[in-house]
């Protein structure tokens, strides 16, 4: 049927979110951020190997408020990506498709990633 000029029905604008769709898009965004972060970490290592003055420069950045936020955020984003990837691996093996199970594992991923982020931070600061 010819309907070139017919309007497109609304999609993203109206569709309601649920745990799995929210985690799916977050997984993607976090994946991109992590890739960039890994490049940054590599650059950091290269800089350190180039000498002491570089190390100080990074040290100052990481001790600023923004630097600390950056580190805490990355501990969360990596924890999240790893936990959600475990869900994906389970799906690839054929497990966890049931609505209730996928919802539960999704919620575990959200809270688990937050707990992991806090643990990594505390561990890094030698508190535990």
């Amino acid at each position, binding site marked *: 049927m010819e309907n070139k000029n017919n*309007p497109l029905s609304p999609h993203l604008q109206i569709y309601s979110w649920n745990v*799995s769709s929210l985690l799916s898009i977050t997984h993607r965004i976090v994946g991109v951020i992590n890739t960039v972060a890994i490049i940054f970490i590599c650059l950091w290592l290269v800089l350190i190997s180039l000498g002491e003055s570089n190390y100080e420069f990074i040290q100052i950045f990481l001790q600023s408020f923004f630097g600390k936020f950056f580190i805490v955020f990355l501990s969360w984003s990596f924890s999240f990506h790893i936990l959600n990837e475990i869900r994906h691996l389970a799906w690839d093996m054929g497990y966890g498709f*049931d609505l209730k199970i996928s919802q539960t594992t999704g919620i575990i991923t959200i809270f688990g990633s937050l707990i992991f982020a806090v643990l990594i931070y505390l561990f890094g600061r030698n508190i535990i």
Partner: protein
Amino acid sequence: MVQFSLPQNSKILKGKYYKDKSGSNNLKKVNVYRWDPSTKENPRIDTFEVNMNECGPKVLDILFKIKNEIDPSLTFRRSCAHGVCGSCAMNVDGVNTLSCTKSHSDIKGDLNIYPLPHLKVVKDLVGDLTTLYKQYESVEPWLKTNVGQKTTEEIKQSQEDRAKLDGYYECILCACCSTACPSYWWNGDKYLGPAVLLQAYRWINDSRDEDKKERLKKVADELKLYRCHTIMNCTNSCPKGLNPAKAIGSIKKMLATS
């Protein structure tokens, strides 16, 4: 390139407001997507005040009430009215479902009704599903076997093999799942979508079918199959409680292990 916003001719305007005339104290505001192909206007949202004291329990009852008592030009597809035909699939309160099995008392506040998402609108709540039907045809949804030509006897299936089709044969092709899938929104011309893939799996999984290998080969495609990123909107929306995400996962697993 994926376009996340609606094209200019699809931007939704504010429409008419139909005030209640019955004087009832139990009113529900129902916002319905309208588009009339005979005018050149953009789609709009009309708001109807519906007297809930004299209305059946389903969302479809509300639509009928509006059509019968308020605005006869309201257009929507429906047939069986008890969740078997799949005609009245639409987006109710942000989730695709069959309006004939969806109870409106589950929804608090105003009721928003849109056509199935990311389709060309034919009129009001009717979307154009031509692409989806073509894709359905492409998976050849019929039994392929050579046995039938040799004998006139029925092709038997054990109870265990028959049970493997449970959760898949019930699909009524209402398209709720496919039009709930963001991957299908962005790549609907190439990606087959959950409804069609579930049907593909139903035939791959049929013990009587002798074309399993060919079927798997046909569907094993970067775009046709692997655009599924397990967003699970399909399973979340299926009004029959089926699990298209699992069916797609099973096809992927079969391909990975064969």
